[in-house]
């Protein structure tokens, strides 16, 4: 019996997820009917539909946080560590702020910042990586050796060091994590582009006298998209975890701004009392990570032309 209850829960969660995915796919099929995307939507696996639905929900929650949250992000609204109730759905935290409202605002802060950081990391890494591959020679050597040097230092320790030097603020954190993650993106972009620059069509473009920018933008980048998109999903999750880790250590998003990483830390004592509330922000992070990877897997599958 003791074993059956958790199994039942797992089954319920899986069924719920599948139902959400199926429902979302039906909706998307109706919405995309007759357009070019219709075919892609119809062949979308349930996992990808589920992932898209979750991402969409997160985005809506983040966008409309002030409308959804019953209380403000930073206001103390009650006693410390209140249990779940009809007024405070998920109770209150160690200062007496409403947990549910902070979860909702956390979606905006944590996801928004992670997205900005990943986008910046990709901008820097992809551009430099493609330039290194397309130009080659000493440009490639210099860029690659700098990146090697950066990668020799453990990422989290390096980030902590830089943030201690620069001072912990949100723009600084975005910049630091983006630069560190850009080294990983650089390596991938360069490796992928290396295989593409030797193609005859790139040679034909060079022989035509095309400039570097056009060769990179039109000839190389479109053919490097599939692995880069896959990496974007993974990288997004890593950045997410980095931010949460830094926040947990006190160097990331600063209080009183709501953030899932620091929310785990702030309410961690409740775990000893058998309360699962501190695990909810962590669960939100895990759910988004899984959702993003479902979608990325699907995109990768499509881009690489694999058939099932």
């Amino acid at each position: 019996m003791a074993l059956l209850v958790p199994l039942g829960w797992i089954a319920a969660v899986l069924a719920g997820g599948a139902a959400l995915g199926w429902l979302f796919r039906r909706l998307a099929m109706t919405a995309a009917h007759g357009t070019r995307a219709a075919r892609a939507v119809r062949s979308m696996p349930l996992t990808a539909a589920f992932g898209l639905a979750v991402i969409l929900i997160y985005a809506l929650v983040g966008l409309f946080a002030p409308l959804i949250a019953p209380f403000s992000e930073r206001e103390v609204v009650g006693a410390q560590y209140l249990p779940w109730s009809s007024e405070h759905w998920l109770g209150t935290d160690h200062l007496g702020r409403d947990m549910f409202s902070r979860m909702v605002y956390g979606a905006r802060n944590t996801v928004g910042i992670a997205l900005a950081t990943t986008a910046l990391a990709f901008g820097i890494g992809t551009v430099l990586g493609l330039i290194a591959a397309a130009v080659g020679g000493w440009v490639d050597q210099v860029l690659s050796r700098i990146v090697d040097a950066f990668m020799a230092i453990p990422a989290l320790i390096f980030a902590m060091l830089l943030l201690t030097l620069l001072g912990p603020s949100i723009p600084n954190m975005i910049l630091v994590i983006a630069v560190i993650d850009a080294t990983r993106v650089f390596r991938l972009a360069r490796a992928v582009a290396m295989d593409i620059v030797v193609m005859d069509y790139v040679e034909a473009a060079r022989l035509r006298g095309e400039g570097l920018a056009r060769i990179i933008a039109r000839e190389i980048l479109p053919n490097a998209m599939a692995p880069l998109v896959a990496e974007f999903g993974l990288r997004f999750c890593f950045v997410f975890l980095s931010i949460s880790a830094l926040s947990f250590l006190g160097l990331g998003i600063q209080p009183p701004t709501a953030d899932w990483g620091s929310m785990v830390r702030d309410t961690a004592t409740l775990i000893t009392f058998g309360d699962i509330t501190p695990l909810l922000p962590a669960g939100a992070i895990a759910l988004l990570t899984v959702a993003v990877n479902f979608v990325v897997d699907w995109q990768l599958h499509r881009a690489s032309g694999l058939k099932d």
Partner: protein
Amino acid sequence: MAPLLDIRDLTIEGRSGDDWMPLVRGVSLTLNRGEVLGLIGESGAGKSTLGLAAMGYVRDGCRIAGGSILFDGIDLVRAPEDQRRRLRGRRIAYVAQSAAASFNPAHRLIDQTVEAPVVHGVMPRAQAGREAVALYRRMQLPDPDGIGLRYPHQVSGGQLQRAMTAMAMASRPDLIIFDEPTTALDVTTQIEVLSAIRDIVRDSGTAAIYITHDLAVVAQMADRIKVLLRGQEVEEADTRSMLSAPREAYTKSLWAVRSHQRPERPPPVGEPVLAVRHVSAAYGMMQVLHGINLDLHVGRTTAVVGESGSGKSTLARVIAGLLPPARGELRLAGRRLAPSYRMRPREDLRAVQMIYQSADTALNPKMRLREIIGRPVQFHAGLSGAALERRLHELMEMIELDPATFLDRLPSELSGGQRQRVGIARALAAEPRVLLCDEVTSALDQIVAEGILKLLDRLQEELGLAILFITHDIATVRAIADDVVVMKDGRIVTQGTKADVLAPPHDPYTELLLSSVPEMDPDWLTRVLERRAAPSARAAGR
């Protein structure tokens, strides 16, 4: 006696999107022990699919929709996978087109050769090793005792192809399927592989299915020939009567392909468009071209022939400016051409255009034809809007593709021949004076290649292009060349007009090259081998 292989009314379908498209439609085939059947047809005719089906195997995304495959009384369609697996490699073996891709680069040849007989329990490891060496010897591989200890990258392509045949023979199968085993080889290497395969198949009494698109090759190998077209049988007859009296119109058209000839052109007059003078070039320390002299004239085609590694593609790369020559110079209409393409002005870049061997890598897979062909027009001629659109239509009509249907397609939505046409259009879009064609037809079927050659011929007449045509196929040279240059090891062996070079007396290398080209005569291989053996036998006797 019942035939070894009896395929009845076989239909195989392949998935395309949500639908199943037939790849093989109701083909029947019988093969007796010790018999060799040739399967020929263009790509997409279903030859390989049929060949694999003879092993009871279909590729991913395909299914057998009907019919039966009886191998020695066992129905391979209904037999359980386990039983089919035990037949493959033991009683039925397969030799693929690319031996380089079929060998595991991490293991020695001998270990891969003995794998099938040992795994299937035909014989113990030691005996299999001895038999493998005997097979290497029968395949006329050099150093048969030691070659098995080498890794695949340590032997040449022709040797690897022979080693693969030895591997297929290792468990003494009843049936071998050869899928284009010599297509990727030079003519001089092909002849060695052909004779080795023919002898070993004959001596061991193995039945074989020989798949190829080269009629002259199949004429040497097969007892009977079956012609396929779009998954259906066109006709089947024994080799000699098929060659002398093909019944169907399609078969006749296959036979007629090699007859494309062009009238002689008058000898060149005036200054050459492009002159190559004393050019030597090297990749790092490796010297690949030695003192090359060459003239290209308006409206004339110069064919460069030679086996792989002779430096013919390097020559094209030097002319295009991709590999600056170590010594010597290039002149375009009397003016000196900069050695590297980076230093050439746009006018010079425009004048020399290249067409690549493999249209798969020559066209950006993410670009539509509109941009692939339109970009050079825009870039060199500065056209845009309606003028660009008009020029695009003009170019598409030049390459005989309908603009309305094709302009918005991606390269993956075209056939191999159509892609090569697009490659030509992209080169023509720049309005060049010199076209460098690097093996542009060698990846194509004969009928499609024929179309490309005719197209190039017509365009040359219309536009007065000077063409440098690199090829290893003498039949192509006969069809299109005005002048011929024979290369070996980075040097020009002989050069002159087609009539001069192709007519005797030849120098020894040209003679070897010319005599290695398969002819449509079933006795050709035997005759050539006898002729070649005769002088060496005399030398040995002395």
